[in-house]
C-alpha cells in the first residue's frame, strides 16, 4: 500500500482528500488503481505519446523523496510515499 499525496488542484476529484492509500508495485499499477477509485485523476496526471500512456512531462513523480527515473515501470514499495510535483527542469529542457 502506498500513501499518495494528492496535489491541491486535484482534490476536487478525491472528495477533498489530501492523502489516499493505494495498492501498486509499479507506478503504472498505482495510477490505474487511483483511477479506479477516483476517476479523472489519470487524465490529469498522464498524457499519451508514441510510447503509450506516460506521466505528463510537466510532472515529476517522487517516491520516498526521490525523483523516479524509470517512468511507469518505477517500483513502488510497500509503504512508499508518493508525491506528484511540477517537474524541476535543472539546466535542461523545460
Amino acid at each position, binding site marked *: 500500500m502506498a500513501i499518495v499525496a494528492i496535489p491541491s488542484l486535484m482534490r476536487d476529484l478525491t472528495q477533498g482528500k489530501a492523502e489516499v492509500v493505494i495498492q501498486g508495485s509499479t507506478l503504472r499499477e498505482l495510477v490505474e488503481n487511483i483511477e479506479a477509485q477516483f476517476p479523472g485523476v489519470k487524465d490529469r496526471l498522464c498524457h499519451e505519446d508514441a510510447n503509450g500512456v506516460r506521466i505528463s512531462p510537466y510532472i515529476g513523480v517522487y517516491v520516498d523523496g526521490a525523483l523516479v527515473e524509470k517512468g511507469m515501470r518505477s517500483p513502488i514499495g510497500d509503504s512508499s510515499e508518493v508525491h506528484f510535483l*511540477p517537474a524541476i527542469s535543472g539546466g*535542461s*529542457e*523545460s
Partner: protein
Amino acid sequence: MADGNGYKVVGTRPIRHDGVDKVTGRAKYGADLNFPDMLFGKILRSPHAHAKIVSIDVSRALAHPGVKDIVTSKDLPILSENILAEDKVFYKGHAIVGLAAVDVHTAEEALSLIDIEYEVLPAVTDVAKAIREDSVVLHQSLTTNTLGEKTGKPTNISSHVRHQNGDVEAGFAEADVVVERTFTTQTVHQGYIEPITATAKYNPDGELTVWTSTQGAFNVRQQVAGILDCPASKVRVVPLEIGGGFGGKTTVYVAPVAALLAMRTGQIVKVTMTRDEVFEGTGPAPATLIRLKMGATKDGRITAADTDLFYEGGAYPGSAVGAGANCMFAAYKIPNLMIDGFDVVVNKPSSHAYRAPGAPNSSFAAECVIDEICQKLDLDPLEFRMINGAKEGDRNPIGPRHGKIGYLETVEAAQTHDHYQVEVGNGKLRGRGVASGYWGNGAGRSSVNLTVNQDGTIMLLEGSTDIGGTRASIAMQAAEVLGIAAEDVRPAVVDTNSIGETGVTGGSRTTHATGLVAIRAAESVIEQMKEKLADHWEVNLNQVDFADGTFLNSDNQISFKEAARICSPVVGSVTESTTGAGGAFGTHVVDVEVDEDTGKVEVLRYTAVQDVGTAIHPSYAEGQIQGGAVQGIGWALSEEYVYDQKGQMVNASFLDYRMPTSYDTPMVDTVMVEVPNPGHPFGVRGVGEVPLVPPLAAIANAVSRAIGVRMTHLPMNPGSVLKALNKI
C-alpha cells in the same frame, strides 16, 4: 596520497585532462571549425515585440551575388515556431528567415534585402500587466492548465500550480510577527561568453552531421531529427568544447536551420549568433513578481507562509515556476503553507533554464522576508535558521521527505566562520546579509565505455559534454575504483554515434550520474580481469581478489598495470538510467558597503558555504560555488533586460547588460561541508546549481541592513538604491 576520507584519488586536485589544450588555444569550440567551401548562415529576426507577418519577399536577397539559399518556417518539415516563426512573431529577436551565403558579410547584407510586411500589435512585456483581464493576449489558443484541467478561456496565464498544507489563516493567527512584501526580479541572461553556434553537413546517403557546442548532444539529435522529420539514427551530433552554458545550451536554436540549409544546398553551413542575437533570440531566465506573507512566533518559529508566484514564460509557456515553488521553503519546517504559482506568457524571448531555474527568484523572496522577520524579532538570522531548518526525515513543506541532507551543517559552518565573527564595520553604510538556498539535483541516463590498454591506461568515452571540469571528476571516479592514478585515465567526450544515450550536462547531474556509470563500468572491467586472471593463474574465480589496485590470489599479487598487460583488451560498457541523486543546500554570508552619493553597492566580503556531499575534485567544486555566487552578484546588483515602450530590448550588448567584472568582485571564500549522499558510492551531491540560489537575498539583506530600507526589487543598481535612499 590519501585524503581524510580514505580515498586515493577522490578529493585530490590533478590537472584536468583537457587543460593544456585550453590554455594554449588548441581546444576547438563550436565556432572554431573551418571547412573549404563552407557557407555562412544568418537569421533575420523580428524588429517588433508582437506582430502578424503579412508577407515575406526574399526575391531581392536571393538575387544578391553570393547568396545560396533562403528558408522560412514553411520549409521546416515539422513546424517549430521558436526556430522559425510561422505567421506571428512574439518578441523582438524572434527568428523568421534563415539564409546561407559565401561569407558572413554577404549573409548580413542579404538580410537587409529581405522584405517583410508586418502588422504591428500591442505588446506586453511586464508580468504584472500580462495577468490582468484587459491585457493583450499572445496566443488565442492558450488557456490556463491547472494540473491537467484547462479553463477554456484565452489568457496569458498558461498554468497554475498549488501547494497547500495545514491552514495558513490559523498559522498567521498564531504568529507574533507577520511580514508581507511584494518582490520583483527582472529578466536576466545566462551570459555564456560563447555565442550559440552550429555547423551542419548533409551526406547524400542521408546522414546529417551537426557540430555544435551544447550541454546535451543527444538532445540536439532528438530535436533536430524531430524538426527535420528524419530518424534520429541519421543525425550524428558532434559536441565540441563549450564556452559556458548554465542551462541556456540545453536546447537548439540555430542547429535545425543550419541543418536545413545544408540539406538543401549540399554544402556545409555554419550559423553563429552575434551577441545581440544571443540576448534577443535565446531564452533568458524569467522576470518574476512574487507576493509573500510569512508569520513567526516571538521565539523564532515559522508558523505560516502564503505566496503567489508569477513567472514570465516569455513568448511560449514553460517558465520554471514549478521548480521555484518546490525549492522556495525546502530548507525549513513550515506547518501551514499555501503556494500558488503561475506561468505567464509575455512578449519576450521564450524563457529557458538558468542555473537552478526558478529557485533564485522564489528564494529571493523567502530569504528576504525571513530576514525582515529576524530584524523585527531581534533574532540572529543564522540562529533563526537553526531553529526552523530541516534535517533528514523532515518534509519539504510541499510534500516529500528529505533523505540525508546537510542543511543545518551549512548554517553551523557559516555561524562559526571567521567572516561571521568579525564586525561588519560602521561609520559608512555597511551591512551584512545571510541567506540559504536549495536545489534538487538530477540523475537520469548516462553511458560510459571504458577500454583497458596494454600499458594499464584507460580510455574513457562518455557522452557528457564538459562545461566545468566533469571530464576530470568522471575520470577520477573511475581511477579510484581501479586503483590507478587520475592521469592514467584518458577521458573523451564523443559524438552520438559513438556512445550510448546520455542526458544533458545540466541539472547538476553529471558528476553523480555519469560518475556512477563510470564506476559501474570500472567494476565490470575488474570482474572481467578477475576472470581472465583466474584462467591465467589456473585457479578458481573465487580465489582471485582485487583490492587497492592489486589483483591477488594466495600465490600471486600483481598491480593493475601488470594485469592489464596480461588481460587487455578489456572493455566495460554501461548505460543506466540512474537514480539516487541527493539534494543540496547552501548558506551565504555577504558584507556590502553602499556609497550614499552614487548608490553604488560594493561587495566587500563573500563567504559561500555548501554541502557538496563529497568533493571529487575540490578545485572544480569550489569553482562552481564561486562562479554561481558571482552570477548572483550580477543578478542582484546590475543585470537586467531593459525594455522601451514598444517592448524592445535596448541593452543587448555586454556594455549595457552589465555582468560582473574582476573589478566588481572580491575573492569568494568557499566552505565545502561534506554530508555524503547515500545514493552514490562516493557520496557525491550535485554542486553546480545551488550556488546561484542564495546570493540574491544575501546581497539584498546586506544592502537593506546597510541603508535601513527593505530592498524588494532587483537589480539594486545605483539608481534604485538612490531611490530607496530618497535621493532621487
